[in-house]
């Protein structure tokens, strides 16, 4: 059963994007290699990371627990398919600014969950999303400063117990509603501030590609949102390159600095090459 799953990842490679190919290959080599029987521990998760980091960051130095980036997730995943994770960035600790943050889940089949690029003057200090967690694993956030320094934090998440699995719950609904988007705008808590919070929701199964078609017995290719960009009137706020570790119906909540009154624009592209676009006027209450 395990071996079949591994070969499915390899089968999926030509069909997925280059980014997907990289993360799936890493998953094949490392993500589950030690996971056939025992669950991961902090030590085995660290070993996976040790072997993985060169593929993602080369031989660059990675600073740990510097305060530039902070991560929060539940100690135990409740629903393996929907594990909330919060990443906080402290611009005061990175005077040259933070360029990107990468979220890694060591023990997942695709450990690189997502890389987020932050708009230069977007002022993003908090980003939360939801991920699949297949096994006991560290979740890591690695922030890269404009100067190219890497800063990492990590938190250990125990996999959910019971019959909770990191799979799509209602596949028919997921297929039927794909591409719908919803944007919630949360007015600033204080007046006179230009910081607003947004929550972007996209309907998409974000399928793993690890399942067979019951009729043909062929593996269904991975199908997920691989690129997402969020901007205000053409000015980038946040963009993402992501994979199958992001939960179905990808969901991102983040703060940003409002510039003028231009509308919020979103473009998402999935591995089938489908492009989903939407835009919403800025709700300026409180400004």
């Amino acid at each position, binding site marked *: *059963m*395990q071996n*079949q*799953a591994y070969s499915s990842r390899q089968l999926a490679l030509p069909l997925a994007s280059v980014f997907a190919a990289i993360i799936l290959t890493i998953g094949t080599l490392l993500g589950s290699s030690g*996971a*056939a*029987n*025992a*669950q991961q521990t902090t030590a085995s998760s660290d070993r996976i990371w040790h072997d993985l980091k060169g593929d993602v960051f080369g031989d660059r130095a990675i600073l740990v627990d510097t305060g530039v980036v902070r991560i*929060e997730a*539940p100690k135990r995943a*409740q*629903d*393996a*398919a*929907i594990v*909330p994770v*919060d990443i906080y960035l402290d611009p005061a600790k990175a005077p040259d600014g933070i360029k990107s943050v990468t979220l890694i889940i060591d023990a997942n089949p695709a450990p690189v969950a997502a890389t987020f690029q932050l708009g230069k003057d977007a002022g993003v200090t908090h980003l*939360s999303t*939801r991920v699949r967690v*297949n*096994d006991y694993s560290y979740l890591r956030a690695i922030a890269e400063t404009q100067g190219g320094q890497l800063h990492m934090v990590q938190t250990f998440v125990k*996999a*959910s*117990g*019971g*019959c*909770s*699995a*990191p*799979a*799509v*719950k*209602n*596949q*028919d*609904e997921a297929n039927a*509603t794909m591409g*719908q988007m*919803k944007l*919630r705008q*949360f007015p600033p808590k204080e007046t006179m501030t230009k910081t607003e919070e947004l929550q972007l*929701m996209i*309907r998409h199964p974000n399928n*793993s590609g*690890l*399942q*067979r078609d*019951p009729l043909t017995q062929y593996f269904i290719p991975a199908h997920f949102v691989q690129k997402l960009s969020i901007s205000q009137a053409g000015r980038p706020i946040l963009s993402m390159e992501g994979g199958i570790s992001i*939960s179905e*119906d990808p*969901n991102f*909540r983040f703060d940003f600095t409002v510039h003028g009154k231009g509308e919020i624009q979103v473009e998402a592209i999935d591995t089938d090459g489908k492009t989903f676009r939407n835009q919403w006027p800025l709700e300026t209450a409180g400004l």
Partner: protein
Amino acid sequence: MSIDRLRRRLVSGFACTAASAALLPCCLGRAAAGNLGFSLRQIADGVFAFQGTDELMTAANDGAICNLGAVVGTDAVAVIDSGGSLIEAHAFLAAIGKVTAKPVRFLVNTHMHPDHIFGNAAFREIGATIVGHRNLPRALDARGVFYLHNYREQLGEALMERVEIVSPTRLVDDHLQLDLGGRTIELRAWKAAHTDNDLTVFDTTTRTLFAGDLVFMGSLPTLDGSLLGWLRQMDALTAIDAARVVPGHGPVTADWPQALAGERRYFEVLARDIRKAIADGTPLREAVKTAGGSERDNWHLFDDYNERNATAAFAELEWE
């Protein structure tokens, strides 16, 4: 047979003697396997059920946590769910053999969860046709490897050793009738609720409804499909003209449709709390810590599953 397994059999045989003494009046079929003993109770004419224990699946309970059923016709037996381990499945088959000589021709899986399907291989081995919802093979393909891996820790190597994910070969699109000789059972495929592959079995002769995990009593329901779908289908469930129900978890037989009241109330409370959190802008991670909390004293396993249910409910209700 390994020494470990032999010891398990001996110990469990002993346990069964003790357990069956307490259940004597209704304990018709017993088999000396399974840590807790395995007793089949006749709940209507030719209709038998096994009551799972209100616990998580563990090595100590052989994974025997859900209710199982058997309907006996003049030609054949249909079994409802295979149990959470091969040990449980073999004990189940042995118990059936003590109440009827008819062959087990059908195994009906009510949905994808391990406590209901880990015993499937035992029924494939005896040549039974395995029947399930049209979505069940897809759901098992997406989860099978994960289930086998995840439960190895929880159930232990010995119990998991020969467990396989065995998909149904006969699928139910909407309705399907199975003729057991002299009686017919009606299978009905539901839209996403507990899972996206829920199937119920109705014995027309005695009007007994095997609801699978569409009905939980005592143990907290788990949400792995659609909260809105479950609530939307409550009325259709209620409308089934059953004399009694065998819920997926809880007492082995209960009045119908009163049996639905508890879970309906829980889901309505959970939906209300989650909707309020969403309206207030409370993030998921905060909202799930308190949502549904007023139901804590009404359920077994509340702390094991409520936060998970709240998480799934939040992700679903955000789209309303």
